[in-house]
Structure formats: structure tokens, C-alpha cells
């Protein structure tokens, strides 16, 4: 098994873990963390799978660079919204259970 | 564009454009609004006159516009179309005059007259539709433009009536649409042509064609108020009298009846429809409606409701005439399309006059009204006799042809239905006439809005229209055999439909 494929498989794992977390976790911070894990998984699959024959491919690498920047923009926005939401309501989650805290 | 293309459009535009301008007018511009209305009505009359002369001479008028590939908006001003167009145009003129008087001083008149013009636009568009698609476009437009008129008063009761009206007509429209698209899928665009066109589909399509027929007739049957699809009509009587007069006695129900005529004669072809066995059920439905409507009318104390049920009954004469296989029945049905319109509008004008002048809404309050309002009551009486079918009124002529047609088609039971209906008509109209003329007048009327001045029992604008239409009831009956009567025109159409 090539290095690329190995990391791609790891990426699958992270993606699914992150996606499930993003759906299930209630706390907004956790959702943001989960979303980032999910994104990292997708990035690993993108580069790893393209390099599964261990030939460096600069195209997906450039795509991932783009993706990382987009991800940080989204993260900052999500945190900004979460903070504004918290400042107004004192809540840290959108679901009903989160209202308890 | 040639003149023959422009004229049908001009007929439509002559009510559409004034309507749109009126919407934008401020409430207080009464003079301008009335002028626009009358200008539209008169110019429409002129255009229709030109068309009539042309069609009688064998000219063909039409206009086509492609909306989608294989789907066209088609206008065709043929003899049948003009029968309905002329009826609506003439009656629109009278009703406009009447409505100006009727609504004097009430709020939201720009809105009222705007939608009123749109309704007439929809009616003439529907009459001149050259294919099922176009017919449907104006059929729905008619629904939409009448709703604001039904709920015009803005009372909760008006809202209820309006919602019932919508529920019925939109559901009917949905059925109609399904049928139309189905047929469209089977054979492409379905133009209205003499003798129909669906027979070309061949025997393997008959089962589908029967279902489509049911969908189409049920769709238009809602507006034609065929039992059991008639429930909206009495409810819609909450509308102001001119609306009931023109729209619910004439335009809307006639649109349904007219649709039946087009579908049977020019989509299926009367002979093909007969061979599929579709006409007998239609005749039975019409017969049931005729009797049922009359029976229900007997028990209504509200004058407008009684008239409404009478409409339910009378409009089905048209469907019945269509379903009688043979030219004589056709002539009767088509002539009745016009005759019923003139008679029923007279009745509604009169009913409106009682309400507006004396505050009388119920049959039981009409005692002695004939002496207070002799002219109105005379008009009412003439129209009522017409409805019963007494010679020499217009109603007599159409009933005569229907009976003849039934005998010619070998459907003797229809004659019995006609007799029953006439007796019932007499049973619910004669008591009214008795009250009007022979009962003593009460000490006071419920709400006497307009005092009598000499022989002018009510406002000018309210009085003239019923008198003219009542005269027309007599004239069309007396001069039915002349070459310019509605009957003669119906004969022309029947000759063309049965030419094949």
C-alpha cells in the first residue's frame, strides 16, 4: 500500500468522524471543530488519492491550499456568529437541549 | 399584421386597456372613469359589429402567437365565438351603465371597474379562443378576475362566499388542465375545428379519450354549474348586483356552457362523441341539473338566491341542446345561450333595483312592490315569463327548438324534462309576480334609499338597463325568424357545425 492511499484512508476516517460530529454535537464550538476535522479528512483524500501511486501531484496540493484558506475563513465566520449569538442569548448551541446550559 | 388579425385583438384590448388604466385612477375621478368604461364598451361594440358583418360574409378572423414550441395562443373569431362575444359585449355596455348608478358613492370603485373590465376581457378572450390552451388561459383569468368582485364588500360573509367560489373553480380548472395536457400529449395542439379532430387518433385511444372527456367536461362543468358541481353559484351571490347580473348570470356560467359546446362540437365532434356514447350521460346530467335547480329555487326566500338556482337550471338547457344529437337541438341550445343571458340579466337588474331602492332582498318582502316600482316590475315580469317559456318571449323560442330537437333525436324523455322544468319555473316565478302586483304594499319598505320622483321610481342609470333588456327579451322572441336575430345566427352556426 502506497503512502498516498494510506493517508487517503485516514482521510476517509476523519471525514466521517467530523461529519458525524458536526451533525450530532450540540455545542457550537464542537461543531466548528468537527467541521474542521471533516475538512481535513477531505483534503487528505484529495491529495492522498491523487498521489496513490506516489507521484507528487501539485494540482490537488494547490487545491488544498485554497481549501485551507477557505476553511479558516468559514471557521472565523462561524466563531464570530457563535460569539454574537452567545452574547445575545447566553446560549452555546442551537438545539433545544443546548438551551439548558 | 393584417386587419383580420388585428380585429380580434382590438376586441380584447378595448376592455383590457381601459381596465388597466382604471386601476391606476384615483377614487374621485368618477367622470373620467365612467367615460373610459363607456368608451371601451362602445368601441368594443363597434369592433364586434365589424366582425359580425365580416363573418356573415364568410371572412375569417384569427391571430396566433407561439408561447412554447408546439403551444400557441390562438384567437379565432368564428360565428360561434361571435355569438358569445356579442352577447357579452352588449350586456357589458348595459351593465356598466347600471353599475355606475348602482355603486354611486360606495368605496373602491376604481378597483371594482378595473376588475370588471378584466372579467369582460377574459370572457371575450375565452369566446374567441381558437384552441384548448387559449381557452384554459382565459378560463382561469376569468376565475381570478371575478374573485375580487365577489369579495368586493369585504365582509366576512363575502370572504366565505369568495373562498367557496375559488375552491370550486380552481379545482375545476385543475381537472380541465389535466385533460387538456393529456390530450395535448396524445395529439399535439388541439385546435378548435368544425367536426372535431380527436377522431383521427383511432380506435386504440378511445378509452383514454373517454377519460379525457370526463375531465374536460367536469372542468368546465364547474363554471356551467352542472349538479353536483354547482355549489359555488348561490354562495357567489354575496357579490354586488351588477356582478351577479353580468358575471354569474351570464359570463361565468356561460363560459362553462360555451366550453361544453366547443369541446363537444369542435374537439370531439358531435358525431364522434355520439359514437363514443358520451352524449347521453351529458344529456342526463343536464336534465338532472335542470330539474334539481328548479326544485331548489322553489325554496329560496332570498331573491338573488332564487335567481341563482334558476340560473343553475337554465344554463343546463344549453348543455342539453348540445347533447341532443342533431342540428335542431343545437340551434335551441345556442339560441338559449343568448336568450337566457338577456332574460337573466333583466331579472338581476330588477332584483338589484329592489335592493338598492327599497332595501328589499327577500321574496317575502316584495309585496306590492309593483305599484311602487311599476317599470322595474314590468321588466321583471317579462323576463320571468320568458324564463317560464311563455310565447312570444325569447324563452319560448329556445324551448321550442329544444323540444323539437329532442323529438328529432328520438329522446322523448327530454320533452318531459322540459315540461317539468317549465312547470317548476312557473311555480317559483308566478308567486313573485303575484306578490309584486296583487298584494298590498307594506307601511314602510325595509330601507328606502331612493325616493320616488313622479314616475321615476329610481335612479335613471338603474332604470334604463332593465327596461332595454326586457324589451330585447320581447323583440328577440317576436322577431326570431328575421335574419339578424340570435336564432338566425344559431342556425348559421349549426349549419356550419353539421356541414361535415
Amino acid at each position: 500500500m502506497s503512502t498516498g492511499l494510506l493517508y487517503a484512508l485516514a482521510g476517509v476516517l476523519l471525514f466521517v468522524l467530523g461529519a458525524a460530529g458536526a451533525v450530532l454535537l450540540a455545542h457550537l464550538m464542537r461543531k466548528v471543530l468537527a467541521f474542521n476535522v471533516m475538512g481535513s479528512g477531505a483534503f487528505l483524500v484529495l491529495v492522498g488519492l491523487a498521489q496513490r501511486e506516489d507521484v507528487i501531484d501539485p494540482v490537488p496540493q494547490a487545491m488544498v491550499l485554497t481549501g485551507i484558506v477557505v476553511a479558516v475563513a468559514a471557521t472565523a465566520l462561524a466563531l464570530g456568529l457563535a460569539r454574537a449569538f452567545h452574547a445575545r442569548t447566553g446560549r452555546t448551541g442551537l438545539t433545544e437541549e443546548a438551551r439548558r446550559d | 399584421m393584417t386587419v383580420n388579425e388585428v380585429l380580434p385583438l382590438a376586441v380584447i384590448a378595448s376592455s383590457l386597456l381601459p381596465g388597466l388604466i382604471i386601476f391606476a385612477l384615483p377614487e374621485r375621478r368618477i367622470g373620467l372613469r365612467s367615460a373610459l368604461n363607456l368608451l371601451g364598451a362602445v368601441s368594443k361594440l363597434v369592433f364586434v359589429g365589424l366582425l359580425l358583418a365580416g363573418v356573415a360574409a364568410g371572412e375569417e378572423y384569427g391571430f396566433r402567437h407561439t408561447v412554447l414550441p408546439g403551444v400557441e395562443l390562438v384567437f379565432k373569431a368564428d360565428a360561434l365565438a361571435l355569438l358569445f362575444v356579442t352577447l357579452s359585449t352588449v350586456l357589458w355596455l348595459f351593465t356598466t351603465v347600471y353599475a355606475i348608478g348602482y355603486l354611486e358613492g360606495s368605496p373602491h370603485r376604481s378597483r371594482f371597474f378595473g376588475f370588471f373590465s378584466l372579467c369582460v376581457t377574459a370572457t371575450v378572450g375565452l369566446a374567441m379562443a381558437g384552441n384548448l390552451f387559449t381557452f384554459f388561459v382565459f378560463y382561469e383569468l376569468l376565475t381570478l378576475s371575478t374573485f375580487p368582485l365577489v369579495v368586493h364588500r369585504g365582509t366576512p360573509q363575502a370572504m366565505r362566499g369568495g373562498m367557496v367560489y375559488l375552491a370550486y373553480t380552481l379545482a375545476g380548472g385543475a381537472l380541465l388542465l389535466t385533460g387538456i395536457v393529456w390530450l395535448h400529449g396524445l395529439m399535439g395542439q388541439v385546435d378548435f375545428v368544425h367536426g372535431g379532430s380527436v377522431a383521427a387518433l383511432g380506435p386504440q385511444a378511445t378509452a383514454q379519450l373517454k377519460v379525457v372527456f370526463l375531465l374536460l367536461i367536469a372542468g368546465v362543468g364547474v363554471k356551467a354549474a352542472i349538479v353536483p358541481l354547482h355549489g359555488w353559484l348561490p354562495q357567489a351571490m354575496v357579490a354586488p348586483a351588477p356582478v351577479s347580473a353580468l358575471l354569474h348570470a351570464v359570463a361565468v356560467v356561460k363560459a362553462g356552457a360555451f366550453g361544453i359546446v366547443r369541446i363537444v362540437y369542435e374537439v370531439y365532434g358531435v358525431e364522434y362523441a355520439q359514437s363514443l356514447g358520451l352524449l347521453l350521460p351529458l344529456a342526463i346530467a343536464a336534465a338532472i341539473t335542470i330539474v334539481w335547480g328548479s326544485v331548489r329555487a322553489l325554496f329560496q326566500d332570498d331573491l338573488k338566491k332564487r335567481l341563482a338556482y334558476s340560473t343553475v337550471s337554465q344554463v343546463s338547457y344549453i348543455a342539453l341542446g348540445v347533447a341532443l344529437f342533431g342540428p335542431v337541438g343545437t340551434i335551441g341550445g345556442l339560441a338559449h345561450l343568448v336568450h337566457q343571458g338577456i332574460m337573466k340579466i333583466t331579472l338581476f337588474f330588477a332584483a338589484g333595483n329592489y335592493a338598492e331602492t327599497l332595501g328589499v332582498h327577500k321574496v317575502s318582502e316584495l309585496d306590492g312592490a309593483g305599484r311602487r316600482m311599476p317599470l322595474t316590475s314590468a321588466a321583471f315580469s317579462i323576463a320571468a315569463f320568458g324564463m317560464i317559456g311563455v310565447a312570444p318571449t325569447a324563452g319560448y323560442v329556445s324551448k321550442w327548438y329544444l323540444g323539437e330537437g329532442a323529438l328529432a333525436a328520438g329522446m322523448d324523455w327530454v320533452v318531459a324534462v322540459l315540461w317539468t322544468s317549465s312547470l317548476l319555473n312557473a311555480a317559483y316565478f308566478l308567486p313573485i309576480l303575484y306578490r309584486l302586483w296583487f298584494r298590498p304594499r307594506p307601511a314602510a319598505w325595509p330601507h328606502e334609499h331612493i325616493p320616488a320622483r313622479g314616475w321615476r321610481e329610481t335612479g335613471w342609470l338603474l332604470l334604463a338597463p332593465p327596461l332595454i333588456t326586457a324589451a330585447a327579451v320581447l323583440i328577440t322572441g317576436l322577431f326570431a325568424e328575421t335574419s339578424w336575430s340570435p336564432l338566425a345566427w344559431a342556425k348559421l352556426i349549426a349549419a356550419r357545425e353539421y356541414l361535415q
Partner: protein
Amino acid sequence: MNLAFDLLLILALSWSAWRSLATPDLTRAVVMFIVFGLLMALAWARLGAPDIALAEAAIGAGLTGALLLDALGALQARRGEKKEDA
């Protein structure tokens, strides 16, 4: 040798990701996430992508980490430490 390193790295990645989502303490979760970001940078290096490794370390772990820590402070400042999302 390389394979063993890769496997170890993947294990560490998965573990840190899991902990950052599952650990009850939010502060620790964020720290775990920063660790995860740094490990990702290592993974990128192993995949022959030094550009991404640099960006991941600076942006993925660094800037995101700072943002998260700052937000954590804001979200917990109002009512002190909280433990939730069971």
C-alpha cells in the same frame, strides 16, 4: 520504517481528532485540535506537500487555534467554566 511512522502518525491523528470532539472539557478539546493541526502538518510533509505543511501549521493550527482559544474565552467568560454536550 516509513510505514510504521505513517501508521503511528495516522493513529495519532485519529486519536487527537477523536479527543477534540469527545473530550468533555472544551479547553482541552481545543488544545487537542491544535495538536491535530500540527500532526496534519506532519502528514502533509509525509505526502510531499511542504507548501501545505507550512500553511497548515500557520493557518490550520496557528490562526485557527488562536481563533478558537479566543472564542472559548469569550463563550466561557460570561458564566465561568461549563461542561456540556454530553
